[in-house]
């Protein structure tokens, strides 16, 4: 057990799994000599060599498509998109080739696609997106989004070992801001939710960076005890944990950093409206980014992303309902 950042935990998970399983290889732009745009794979090429830490051409469709090919002949490729936003350029290979392969042919595609997601640092419209909902809406892909260092490592190892294509959303804004105790060695975190904080008066359901914003917003909310549910996995979605949370708290705020329409948060809210209706004691309130590209300039960006204040306000209103 040692304390490390979210980013270090991701590196650690990758390193452990590469040491343990020689089928694992990394592919991406500048992941080798440079160690990755965010230095997640710093030092990897020295330890594992250029064959297993592959600097690819600038070609996202090729990164995903060749990973599929390598996977079906027995490797376990882990692809890095330099920023999550660029997955739009490999979209077809991911949703149509990787996602549908097993259903169609019974052929497993064990690839992991790492997406550095999210905003909050003036990345602008093309370096701040949270595209997870696109992949939730594409059958055959699993989607995970850790919020802590411990889960980042454990979910990554589980993703690599999973026999299916897994989209791994690592939030850039957490890379160096979040630290935590991380067990040594290889371990898997199961693809399900966890309770980030117990509470009974109200629940906030979130994932990724928003878990921290939610915790901060509800740490001291006029004496109310607020349960925070960290989804961790979006596909599969832990419906039981969500419904259990509704049963327990009866009032729910769903927080999502992605653009609101058809987001993960919409799915959670729809689930609750259908299967948790009887336990509800108020509307299912959503806090999310409006349907606007993420602006570059700090005052604009801050006005768009869900903030501690907006979550607080939503919680207060719902508590008063």
């Amino acid at each position, binding site marked *: 057990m040692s304390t490390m950042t979210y980013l270090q935990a991701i590196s650690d998970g990758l390193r452990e799994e590469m040491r343990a399983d020689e089928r694992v290889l990394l592919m991406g732009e500048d992941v080798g000599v440079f160690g990755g745009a965010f230095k997640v794979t710093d030092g990897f090429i020295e330890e594992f060599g250029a064959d297993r830490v592959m600097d690819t051409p600038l070609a996202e469709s090729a990164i995903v498509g060749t990973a599929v090919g390598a996977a079906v002949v027995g490797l376990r490729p882990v692809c890095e998109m330099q920023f999550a936003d660029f997955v739009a350029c490999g979209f077809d290979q991911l949703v149509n080739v990787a996602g549908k392969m*097993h259903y169609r042919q019974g052929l497993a595609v064990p690839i992991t696609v790492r997406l550095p997601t999210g905003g909050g640092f003036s990345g602008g419209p093309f370096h701040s997106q949270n595209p997870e909902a696109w992949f939730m809406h594409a059958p055959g892909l699993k989607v995970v989004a850790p919020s802590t260092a411990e889960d980042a490592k454990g979910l990554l190892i589980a993703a690599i070992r999973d*026999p299916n294509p897994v989209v791994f959303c690592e939030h850039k804004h957490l890379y160096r801001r979040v630290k935590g105790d991380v067990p040594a060695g290889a371990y898997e975190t199961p693809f399900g939710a966890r309770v980030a904080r117990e509470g009974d008066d109200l629940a906030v359901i979130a994932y990724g960076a928003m878990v921290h914003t939610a915790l901060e917003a509800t740490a001291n909310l006029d004496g109310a005890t607020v349960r925070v549910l960290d989804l961790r996995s979006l596909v599969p979605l832990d419906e039981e944990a969500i419904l259990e949370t509704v049963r327990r708290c009866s009032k729910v705020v769903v927080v999502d950093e992605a653009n609101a329409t058809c987001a993960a948060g919409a799915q959670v809210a729809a689930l609750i409206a259908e299967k948790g209706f009887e336990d509800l004691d108020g509307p299912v309130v959503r806090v999310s980014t409006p349907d606007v590209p993420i602006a570059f300039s700090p005052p604009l960006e801050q006005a768009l992303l869900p903030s501690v204040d907006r979550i607080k306000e939503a919680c207060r209103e719902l508590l008063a309902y």
Partner: protein
Amino acid sequence: METDTATERSKLAQAAASEHLTPDDRIALLRTMLLMRGVEARAMVLYRQGKVPGSFYDGFGQEAVSVGAAFAMAAEDRLCVLHRDLGAHLVRGVPVERVFAQYMGREGGVTRGRDGNVHFGDKDLGCVGMVSMLPDMMLVATGMAMAFKLRGERRCAITWFGDGSTSRGDFHEAMNWAGVQRLPVVFVLENNQFAYSTPIEQQFAVEPSKRAAAYGFPGVPVDGNDVEAMFEAVRVARERALAGGGPTLIEAKTMRMHGHAAHDDMRYVPKELLEQWRRRDPIDRQVARVRELGVDVEALRALVDEEVEAGVEAALAMPMPDPATAREGVFAEVAEPLGDGLAPWSGFGPDREDDR
């Protein structure tokens, strides 16, 4: 296209396009082409009878491209097979009844009714079934080749794709990646003059085989209606790949003799063009060669017809999938890599030189 006179054709027929083929190999090539044509003709009838759902695509007139190329592949090689390449499935050993069951969406089809008609690949026979998005499979084949190279294995990947497909970005990304990393992959461009209704002049300004030069590897134009020439070109490309020489682009010049799919009457294709190509039928050509070997081709045809009919009957006896299973299998429980397929070429037999 050159016009073949009768004498030229007879000369061609006699000469083997490859010295690496035994008489049995040459017969096997013919037999597989006949089988492909027989299966597809029969399937078209089934389609018209409403027994094949969706649409139906065939490779009439292009049989040499998939049969010749797949014949040059070893058991441990891997294939991404496209929509006009039934021959490749047959070479790898997919039984005819499973092909018909596939077309008819039955439980006994290769995809168990999950995917449509020509979108299939038997994972136990070294094949990945295509997705519709063309030519996405070029990247999958490139990735398989990448894995072979990384692991230091003497194996190779092959894939087919059409003239129209060369216009898409994935063509470029695959060609470039394979070229930069010198991967053991064979790209077979099936230039059948049309992409649906669109003639090749609207897809590219330059003969596509010449494009390989832009990626640093050879582009080889081949008579795609000569199954032995196809075999030979792919055999050489495979050897090159196994020796570390990198990829080859083979441009198989051929003609789509039927409409794009069952519904298409091909009004947009000039009659004379079809007539010209009809005279270059790949099966006729191989028939002439095999006759020279003293083989009773009519007997062979009869055997093939029997196999086709038996296959249809067996398939028709298979059940449709159980709707209660429709939601199953989206996710895998375990990851099992592709298995091997047949390698019918005698050069892969027990006493071959160890060239792989």
